[in-house]
């Protein structure tokens, strides 16, 4: 078990620099997720840690040991691949035992450890079978057992759930989380699915174009995203143009909001991010922003409304009630939970409500 430290990592494919000067600290024993849209460099970074991609610059450490030039076979990592990469010509048992055999572990230990992890992953009954007869979820369990049985310093997972169907994905998600806690191993997890990342991670690094946009706990990233990209990538949000001045936020169509905490912010044009659940719909005679319902979608537990607010279309989510309360064409007022919304500079690069600068 060890922490991972990355300093000034550089990755180039020919003349094309994919990652330039990336720093990262992953704490011992945490489940760390690299999250981002496809092509953001998250898998590239993971494969640099694993040793399958060359490192064009910078330093990678496991604990205090620099591993840049260490052979992948000697890094003592466990890796779980997107397509599982189960050896099709070996039984489940032999797949799981493969790493221990390479480490020349004595027979009884090999037998005991392999069985322990087969049991832990609840696949002990398939030990004698060939993997082609297993379901996707079972294959994924074999892959996980195989990666963990060698007691690696670091566990790397490259989109391990993307080939599973939705229900199994949720099930495997908690299985991975439980096992990771039980073994207490430093884990780097790559995914493009933000819900998966939120549910599983201790820390998330949101990546775009080979750079980390925001590094924090799932809660921080959702509630106080570092920039407009993170705000829109994680969850849904409405982005509105506005202007700040003396604690008052002016929106389009002469509408405005105010909050005490905004008094210290610099005056000028801004971008405002208000998540659908940060609005609430009130009757036309209540206080709030004047708005008109244009459309509604009933989804059972919640109802999604499209609302026109000063010429902008915004999305609002309300818990469904037994009566159909708002119809398209209704004039309403929108109340805003001002403490929860986020205000960015006009370029969308900094969250004015966060102290430090990110990105």
């Amino acid at each position, binding site marked *: 078990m060890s922490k991972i430290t990355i300093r000034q990592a550089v990755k180039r494919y020919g003349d094309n620099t994919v990652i330039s000067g990336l720093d990262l600290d992953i704490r011992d024993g945490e489940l760390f997720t690299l999250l981002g849209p496809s092509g953001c460099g998250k898998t590239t970074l993971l494969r640099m840690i694993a040793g399958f991609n060359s490192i064009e610059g910078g330093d990678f450490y496991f604990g205090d040991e620099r591993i840049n030039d260490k052979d992948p*076979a000697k890094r*003592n*990592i466990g890796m779980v691949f*997107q397509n599982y990469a*189960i050896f099709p*010509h070996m039984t489940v048992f032999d797949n799981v035992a493969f*790493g221990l055999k*390479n480490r020349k572990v004595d027979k009884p230990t090999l037998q005991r450890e392999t069985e322990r992890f087969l049991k832990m992953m609840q696949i002990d009954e398939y030990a004698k079978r060939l993997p082609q007869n297993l379901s996707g979820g079972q294959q994924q369990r074999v*892959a996980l057992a195989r990666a963990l049985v060698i007691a690696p310093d670091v566990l*790397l997972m490259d989109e391990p759930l993307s080939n599973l169907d939705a229900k199994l994905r949720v099930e495997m998600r908690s299985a991975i989380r439980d096992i990771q806690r039980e073994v207490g191993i430093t884990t780097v997890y790559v995914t493009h699915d933000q819900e998966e990342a939120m549910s599983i991670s201790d820390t998330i690094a949101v990546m775009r174009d080979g750079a980390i946009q925001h590094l924090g706990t799932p809660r921080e990233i959702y509630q106080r995203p570092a920039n407009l990209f993170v705000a829109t990538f994680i969850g849904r949000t409405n982005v509105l143009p506005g202007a700040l001045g003396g604690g008052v936020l002016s929106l389009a169509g002469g509408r405005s909001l105010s909050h005490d905490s905004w008094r210290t912010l610099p005056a000028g044009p801004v971008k405002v991010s208000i998540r659908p659940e940060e609005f609430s719909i009130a009757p036309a005679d209540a206080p709030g922003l004047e708005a008109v319902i244009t459309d509604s979608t009933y989804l059972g537990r919640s109802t999604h409304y499209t609302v026109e607010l000063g010429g902008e279309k915004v999305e609002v989510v309300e818990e469904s009630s037994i009566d159909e309360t708002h119809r398209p064409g209704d004039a309403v007022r929108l109340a805003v939970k001002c403490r929860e919304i986020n205000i960015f500079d006009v370029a969308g690069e900094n969250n004015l409500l966060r102290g430090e600068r990110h990105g």
Partner: protein
Amino acid sequence: MAKQNRFRLDIWGWITLVMLGVYALFLIYPMLHLVRMAFTGEGGLTFANFVKFFSKSYYSSTLVNSFKVSLAATATSVLVGVPMAYFFTLYRIRGKKLLRILIIIASMSAPFVGAYAWILLLGRNGVVTNFFSGLFGITMPDIYGFNGMLLVFTTQLFPLIFLYVTGALSKVDNSLLEASQNMGCSGIARFFRVILPLITPTVLAGALLVFIRALSDFGTPMLMGEGYRTFPVILYTEFVGEVSQNKGFASAIAIIAILITTTVFFGQNIVSRRNSFAMNALNTITPKPMKGLHGVLVHAFCYIVVGISILPQVYVIYTSFQKTSGLIYVDGYSLDSWRSMFDKLGRSIQNSIILPALSLVVIILMAVLIAYLSVRRRNPLTGAVDVLSMVPYVIPGTVVGIMLLTSFNRRPLLLSGTMAIMIIALVIRRLPYTIRSSVGILHQIPIAIEEAALSLGSTKMKTFFKITVPMMSSGIVSGAILSWVTMISELSTAMILYTGRTQTLTVSIYTEIIRGNYGVAAAMASLLTILTVISLLVFYRFNKDGDVTM
């Protein structure tokens, strides 16, 4: 992601260098030696050999002859192979599986055995010839020269077109056919306006391969060419000629041969790459039953073509059981030919098993390594290994024999007359079959599986032999069998390289035919056919789809 790996001197780097060394020694050096011999005369550098070839029509006419018969054979192969593939794909034909196997057997047997059988059937004293002239006084068309060669080449080589085109048609989506039918285009019009344009690149690729094969074939023109001398014949007679041996001149002819075949081959590569359509059928064409006259005609066509193609093999086996008196067949049947065959075989049957078997071991080892290098370790050096390994595929066998013999007949590189030189020749000529099939299967194995093994602490070599090779095995085996089948029926290189100790079955058959021992030759040829058929049946066990290509 661009998969260009930089060259690194790890274990695979060393293997790359060793492979380059092997090809430098056994391919590049012999080729350079050939060039040197061709351009040196008594007074140093000379073009006299080339001038001699092109100025005397005795020599240059062989080039014209070769081109004429090869072009004609290409045309007839296309005319037979394309409709055959079309019928096989579109219609339900009785006994399709068997027909397919027979077509492949016809293409895999040694061409000169076919030539010999046709002489027995249609030659001056042939069974069919005598039958027609005795009964109706009809003189059959002359089987010797151009006509006979065209017949042998067509029956032997149309299967290449057939296999290529069936492969292409299996990628044509059925909805394309239905769409054109929907718009009022069906039958023959649809074939010419929709299907043919789609498969043209494939037809071209196959046609050029047929052309190269016909151009390089040695046994057929030797046996039935008579006055119609082709290029490989003149090359052979100039090299081993009893009257006047002229190694420099033979080298010059060899170089001309290499230039022609490689030009055609690379031309083929360019043409097929530029014109190929990326097709992938969601719904493949399902064969439909046929009714009435249409069905009868299609069946007749398929059965007649396959019948003619397989006739030589069948007839050779038949004659091997005929009674002979001295050199001529007489009425009645006996096992005498088989008995005297075993007396005459000497070491040649052993050699025909041992030489290909030893070669196969080397081929399999080199093929998997080269396939791995060219798929997983793409860089300029491995690219060079890949290209070099394909070069011998298009060089006529006679030329390969001459190259090796002249390069390795002095100390310290004295190999002539040994089994080693025969094995080297077989390996470099037949390696491409196994390389291609290994490359094909390696492309289907996700690299993550190897990475998983590495991440679990397995070394590169252990990963290769424990993980990669077992997963490649089906591809390796099917390629190896193709290499094997072509090795046991190989004649042109062996004719140059053999000695009493290293004589192979094909060489024995050839010499018995030349001596007129037809009965013994037939028995030997039957043995060869049986070996080939058994090998192909093994191939089918490993390769259910039966994709015999190349």
